[in-house]
């Protein structure tokens, strides 16, 4: 039998995103509302002045939270459904399975991205260059979040432990760092702590691209380098950690 790789990729997207949204639409509502809670708070607290930055922060948070979600999904499917055990003894490869699940997380973020895109068109008036910059930042943010989520799924022994990791990482990567507000709002000694989160650099590039904050060119170059380096190293690490057949 000739194995159809596209079918294998689609199976993960169908199972982990499309069927979940179709059979449990409440999940969709929950997903859509997640990035807007913080956006609304930021909007009111800043009297609307940080709306632009908040919308960009929403894009980054969606990438982080949906990327990290791979951890909970993989652990749940593996430990509770024994799906991974079933698939190991089948023609699907680990790379195809993981890629499909990663894609499903991206599909899950489409409703959020649509709403945020409408807000961005209305309130930010993104230029083509800024839109492309934002897309590249989102892609890199998604890639390191997915890799991090996958890595955690290989070390967490059950879903409960995984959820705890997920909440912690989500807070460390998207709520605390200057994602919904500019980096310059943090007083300097504490700014170094913010540099520990790669999302600080994602947000800095995005905020710079719309001209809300003007960082130096060298800082923007460093931010790109950090994002690319973090994404690449986490992907390599995740690939090395991936175990299909147990030892």
């Amino acid at each position, binding site marked *: *039998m000739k194995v159809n790789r596209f079918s294998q990729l689609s199976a993960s997207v169908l199972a982990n995103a499309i069927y979940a949204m179709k059979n449990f639409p409440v999940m969709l509502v929950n997903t859509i509302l997640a990035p807007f809670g913080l956006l609304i708070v930021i909007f009111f607290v800043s009297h609307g002045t940080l709306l632009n930055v908040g919308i960009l922060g929403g894009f980054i948070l969606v990438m982080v939270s949906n990327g990290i979600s791979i951890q909970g999904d993989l652990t749940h499917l593996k430990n509770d*459904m*024994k799906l991974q055990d079933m698939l*190991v003894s*089948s*023609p699907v490869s680990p790379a195809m399975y993981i890629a499909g699940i990663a894609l499903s997380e991206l599909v899950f973020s489409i409703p959020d991205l649509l709403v945020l895109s409408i807000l961005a068109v209305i309130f930010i008036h993104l230029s083509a260059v800024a839109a492309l910059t934002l897309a590249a930042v989102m892609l890199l943010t998604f890639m390191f979040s997915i890799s991090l989520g996958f890595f955690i799924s290989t070390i967490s022994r059950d879903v409960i432990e995984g959820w705890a990791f997920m909440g912690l990482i989500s807070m460390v990567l998207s709520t605390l760092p200057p994602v919904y507000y500019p980096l310059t709002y943090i007083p300097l000694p504490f700014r170094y702590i913010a540099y520990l989160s790669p999302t600080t650099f994602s947000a800095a590039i995005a905020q710079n691209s719309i001209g809300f904050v003007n960082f130096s060119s060298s800082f923007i170059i460093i931010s790109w380098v950090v994002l690319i380096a973090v994404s690449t190293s986490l992907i390599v690490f995740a690939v090395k950690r991936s175990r299909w057949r147990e030892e």
Partner: protein
Amino acid sequence: MVKFTISNLSKRYDDKNGKKLTALKNVSLNLDVHGIFTLIGRNGAGKTTFIRILSTELSPSSGNVYIDGVDVVKNPKEIRNNIAVIPQEAQLIPWMTARENIYAYLLWRGFNFKEAKEKTNAIIARFKLEKYADKLPRKLSGGTKRKVLVALVISSNAKIIFLDEPTTGLDPISRRELWNILNELKEEHIVILTTHYLEEAEELSDYIAILNKGKLVKIGTINTIRDEIGYPYAIKIFGGFDNKTKLHGKVVKKSDGTLQVFSDEKSANNLAKKLIKKRIKFSINPTSLEDIFYMLAGDINGGENESE
């Protein structure tokens, strides 16, 4: 027919304290299997480890496994088109209907969309699951869920199906239904089964392997195992038996006061004649798998009295 050639298969684990645990110890077998091959053994005997190594889920610590000449330890990909497994405690994905579960599994196995859809519809019809196909798993009974899981692996056209304790937790009726399905399957597939239910193994199996503490203690058909044990007959004596009569074979005194004598054909025949003469009630049957299992892998209940 599928040829299984296994030599010196061992699996050692590290437990939480870093202590080495041995799940399988030098298991070797060479068997041409058709129909249903059942592994029985107590909890922790190594059944699941054995099945997980054969189905390429787990690497052994040492040893070789060949299925139809394919080295499944070194080249697992070569066999994966031909095998499908339902692990112990496997569940349907709860947010997908039975039909969606089957369809997604077939896509994962690499069938194109059209083939997967046709195969899903065909297996639903074959397993008479139309009524349940579009329901979520939470609305299905335990037996139906298990039936859907079996349907799912069968639809893949895999020649060898591994089922790890597929009937555990099912009520007797659902269990019988699944037995009927498995009996039908053995016409087209090789089924490798593990079970705790000895009557299930006896009813379904073409070959049986008994594992005890990681070691393969017996393998063959139920009849060859009976012969090899040397006690093909079991005589149950219900009372009124005098201790003067010499008994040949393995004698077990049960807690209800009955005596059970396992013996060869000649001794069984002689004993039966004596019991008839003395008008003592008894029954004589082929030694059951349960009896054999207890002899090889279990501790016989209190009151055991053994003489040769």
